[in-house]
C-alpha cells in the first residue's frame, strides 16, 4: 500500500467512526503498534538513504495528521457533539457559555443561622425572639447573677444611659440570649423546646476574634424527664447535621450561674493530613436549668427539669467557611459578600 492511499482510507475510516468503540478500533488499525504505518517505520532501515529520507518524512507527516484527526474526533465524541448535530443543518456549539443569570448573596451569618435553626426545627424546637435592649433583671438577676457579684464579670456590659433620673430599673444591651429563658417561662408552661436566635452585645475592644456585637442561638428544653444525657444526644445530632461527619464534639464541665451542672461544648475539625492547627474550639455554654429559675417563674416544685444552651453563630461560621477575622461579618465588603 502506498502512503497516499493509506492516508485516504484512514480519513474515510475516521469519518465513519460514530462512537468511542469504533474510534478505538480505528486507532488500533491506523496508529497502533501493528498498524501499516508502524510496520512501515520498522521497515525503513531496509530502504536506501535517499528513500529513507523522502518516504520517512512523508510517513511522519501522515502520522501526525492522523493523530490530530484522532484527538479532534475523540473530543467530539466525548462531548456528544456528534449526537446533537446529527441530521441538523444549523450547527450548535454546545461549548458556548449560557446566558448569564446572576443572583445576590446571603450573608454567611444568615446561611449558618438557617442551617443551625433548620436542624433544631427538625428536632421540634420553635423559634422565639426577644428584645436587644433588655432589663437588668432579665439579663442578670433573674439568671442568678446578682449585682456586684464577681460572676457578672463574665459578661462585660454596655449600659443604656437613663433618660431621666426617675428611671428605676436599669437597661442594657443584652449580653446573651439567655434573658429569654425567664421571659418565656413566665408565660409558658412545660413541656416545651425553644430556640432564641438574636444579636447580643459585649463591652469589648474589637480584634480579629472579638466583636462588640455577635449572634447567639439560645436553646431551652424543659419537661418531666429531660436529662443531661438527652442534652448530649441532641447537641451531638445537631452538630453532625451541620458539619456532616467532619467534626468531633466533646463535653466538659463548666460554670454558669443559671445552670447546674454547667457544661461547655467544644468541637474540632477532623482534618486529613496536617493536624498542626487542629484545636478544640468552644462553641457553646450549656447546662441543666437551675431550679431557682423554675421557682422564679412559679413552676410547680420539683416537677420540671431540662437543659439550656447558648451557641455562638460567628464561631460556627468561622469554622465552616474558614474565616479568620470576625470583623469581616459587620464591615460590609463586596469582595467578602460575593463569596457566599
Amino acid at each position, binding site marked *: 500500500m502506498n502512503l497516499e492511499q493509506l492516508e485516504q482510507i484512514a480519513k474515510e475510516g475516521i469519518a465513519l467512526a460514530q462512537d468511542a468503540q469504533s474510534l478505538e478500533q480505528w486507532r488500533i488499525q491506523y496508529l497502533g503498534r501493528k498498524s501499516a504505518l508502524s510496520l512501515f517505520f520498522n521497515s525503513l532501515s531496509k530502504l536506501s538513504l535517499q528513500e529513507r529520507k523522502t518516504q520517512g518524512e512523508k510517513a511522519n507527516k501522515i502520522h501526525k495528521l492522523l493523530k490530530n484527526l484522532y484527538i479532534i474526533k475523540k473530543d467530539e465524541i466525548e462531548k456528544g457533539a456528534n449526537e446533537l448535530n446529527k441530521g441538523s443543518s444549523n450547527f450548535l456549539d454546545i461549548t458556548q457559555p449560557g446566558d448569564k443569570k446572576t443572583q*445576590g448573596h446571603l*450573608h454567611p451569618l444568615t446561611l449558618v443561622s*438557617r442551617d443551625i435553626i433548620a436542624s433544631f426545627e427538625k428536632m421540634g424546637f420553635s423559634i422565639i425572639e426577644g428584645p436587644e435592649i433588655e432589663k437588668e433583671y432579665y439579663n442578670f438577676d433573674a439568671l442568678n447573677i446578682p449585682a456586684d*457579684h464577681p460572676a457578672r464579670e463574665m459578661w462585660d456590659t454596655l449600659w443604656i*444611659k437613663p433618660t431621666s433620673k426617675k428611671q428605676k430599673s436599669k437597661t442594657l444591651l443584652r449580653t446573651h440570649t439567655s434573658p429569654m429563658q425567664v421571659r418565656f417561662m413566665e408565660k409558658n408552661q412545660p413541656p416545651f423546646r425553644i430556640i432564641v436566635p438574636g*444579636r447580643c452585645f459585649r463591652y469589648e475592644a474589637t480584634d480579629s476574634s472579638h466583636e462588640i456585637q455577635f449572634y447567639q442561638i439560645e436553646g431551652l428544653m424543659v419537661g418531666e424527664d429531660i436529662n443531661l444525657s438527652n442534652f448530649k444526644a*441532641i447537641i451531638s445530632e445537631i452538630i453532625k447535621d451541620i458539619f456532616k461527619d467532619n467534626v468531633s464534639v466533646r463535653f*466538659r464541665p463548666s460554670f454558669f450561674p443559671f445552670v447546674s451542672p454547667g457544661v461547655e461544648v467544644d468541637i474540632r475539625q477532623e482534618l486529613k493530613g496536617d493536624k498542626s492547627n487542629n484545636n478544640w474550639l468552644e462553641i457553646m455554654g450549656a447546662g441543666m436549668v437551675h431550679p431557682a429559675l423554675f421557682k422564679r417563674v412559679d413552676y410547680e416544685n420539683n416537677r420540671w427539669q431540662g437543659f439550656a444552651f447558648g451557641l455562638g453563630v460567628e464561631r460556627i461560621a468561622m469554622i465552616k467557611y474558614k474565616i479568620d477575622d470576625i470583623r469581616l461579618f459587620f464591615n460590609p465588603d*463586596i469582595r467578602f*459578600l460575593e463569596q457566599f
Partner: protein
Amino acid sequence: MKVSYNWLKTLLKLNTTPEKLADILTMNFAETTVKSLGKRPVLDVELGSNQVAWASGHLSLAREIGACLGKKFVLPEPKIKENKTLAKNLLTLDIQTSNCKYYSARILQGVKVKESPQWLKERLSDCGIRPINNLVDAANYVMLETGQPLHVFDFDKLNSEQKTIIVRQAKNKEKINALDGQNYILNKEMMVIADKKQPIALAGIKGGQETGVNKETKNIILESANFVGNNIHLTSKNLGLKTDASWRFEHNIPFELTVYALDRLAGLIQQVAGGDILKGSVKKVKDISGWKQEKIEIPIKWENWEKFLGWPINKKKIIKNLSLLGFSLKEKKEYLLVTPPQFRNDLKIKEDVMGEVARLEGINRIVSVLPREQLKLPTKNEFWVFREKIKDWLKGCGLEEIYNYSFLSEKDKKSLPIQWQEKMIEIENPTSALTKYLRPTFLVNFLKNINYNFRFTDTIRFFEIGKVYSLKEESFVFGGVLAQKIKSNNQLFFQAKGILEGLMDSFGIGSHDYILKPLSKTRFSDLLKQGVAIYKEEDLIGVLGQPQDFLKKDYDCEGEIIYWEIGLSSLFNFINEEREFQSLPKYPAVIRDISFMIPQNILIDQVLRIIQGASPSYLEEVDLFDIYVGKNLPQGNKSLSFHLIFRSQKHTLENKEVDKEIEKIYKALKILGAKIR
C-alpha cells in the same frame, strides 16, 4: 491561674505527663492548657468563678486532682516552733467593721531580709509572680500554696508604742500610699487595715508603703484574714485595682484557711529568714454566726440520679466519687443524705451534688440518649419566616445581604437632623466615640458602606434586615440601597420601586392595598428627597428616595443613590398570603392598544384610575408599555401607550362592544387633557 506542674507532682507523686494532666483537668475539672514545657512545665487552669474560693492554691488543686484520679489527698499539717513570748502581749486587734469576718496575726522577731532561695524564686516566677525578698516571697508562696492571701507588716513601723491593728472602713477622701507606688483616694465603702494614725493596707487588696518590709526590717507581723467578698470586689472595681489577693477574696474563701495559712507562713519565714515565732496567734472573729456556716444536709433520692443525669449509676460509684470530693454521707434506704465539705461554698442543691458526680465520671464519657418526648411540630414563627422570605427575594433580585453595627458615632449623630438626634439612644459606657449611640435608621451606615465599596465596584446593591432603635422602641426594619457612580435618568429609582412592588406582590399586597404619598409629610423628609412614602391607610409603611445632598457630602458619596427603609412589623401586619382559585376564563379576551399624549404633570397613577374607572365591567387588565418624552412632542407633554385587555364572564365580546368601551375611556382621558393619537 498559672500552676507549677513540678509542685503538683511533688504533692501528689504524679506520674502523668503535663499534657495528660491538662487533659484530665479539662475533662473533669476546669479547662487547662499547657503554657510551657521544658524542665519546669507550667499549666494554666481556668477556674470557674465557683471554683476560685476552694481551688486557687496548689494544695487545694492537688486535692481536686486527687479526686479526679481516684486518690484521696490529705493536707499536710503545718509544724512550727514557737518561743515563750506571748504575741498577744505585743499586739492588740480592733475590728470595727463587719466586712472583716476573721482576722489573725502572728509576730516574728529577728528575721533577716534577703534574697529568697532559688527553688522559691523559681516557683513564684513559674506562677507569674515576681520575686522581691524572702518575706514578701514567702507570703506569696503560701498564697499560691493554700489559696489564702497573706500580708507581712514591718512591726516597728506601726505608729504608737502599744502596737494596734485596726480593721475599719476608710474615711471619705482618706488616702493611702500603696506598695505599687500609687496613691489611692478612698471612701467610706472601702475597708482598710490601719494603725492608730493611718491606713497601712487596703484590706484584702494591697499593702501600704509606710509599713512595708525592706532590708532593715527585723520584726514582723503576719496577717491572715477573711473578708466579705462583695466588699473587696467593689473596692477593687472602683479603684481599678485587681490583685492576686483581691481575686481570691472576692470569691469568699473558706474560713479554715485563715489559721492554717498563717502557720504555714510563720514556718516558711523561719525557714528562709530565721527569727523567732512568738507564742500563739492574735485573732478575732467578728461575726460568730458566719464563722461556722450552717451545716447543709441535702437528701437525694436514689432514683433521682438516673432521672436527672440520664444514665444508670450504681450506689457504690456515687458514694466513692462523693467521698473523694470530701462529702460526708449518710446512706438511707430511700435516699442518700449528703453534706458537702465545709470549704465548698458553691454546693447548695441536689443538682449541684449530682453535677459533681457527673464531672468526676466525665460528662464526655457517659452515654447519649435521645429524649422520649411527644412527636410535636414546632410552632411556626411567621414573622421569622416572613423575614427570611424577604431575604430570598432580594437575593434573587441580585442584592447582597449585609450586616452593619447597631452603633453610630458621635460624629454620625451630629450629621443627622436635630429631630432624629433627639430620639437617639445613648450608651452610658461606650467602648469609644464610635459606639456612643444606637442607630435610628440604616441610612448612615449604608452611606459609609457605599463610600467604602466604591473603591472596588461601580455599582452597589445592598440590603439589610435588622433593628433600629429609638427612645420609644426597637423595631425590625428592612433597608436597601442601590448606588452607581455614573448618574442615570432616575433608573435606580424605578429599579428600587420595582423591587419593592414585586416583593409586596409576592406577599399578596397589590398596588390597590397601599397609597403612595410625597415624602414631605414623614420624618424622613429631612434625610431623603425625590422619593415616595408608602402608606397603608394612615400608617407609614416605608420610604424610598435619594439621600439629601448634605448627607452625601458628609459621607463623601458621589453618584446616584436610592435608599429605602421599610418597617417590617407594619408590612407584616398587612400581608395576605391566602390564595383562592378563580375558575379559568370561559370566553376569549380582546386586546387593544391605545396611545395618547398628556401633560407631563398628570401622574400615571391618576391615568390608571381614570382608565379603570371608565370601563368597570369589561376591562380586565391595563398594562403600561411605553412612556415617551422628547422630540416630536410639544413641550410639557408625554406620550403613554397601554395594552388594554377586555373580557366578559358571560359571552364572547364583539368588536363593537369593545369599541364602545374604548370610546368611554377616550372620553374620560380627554377630561384629563389627553390628546388621542
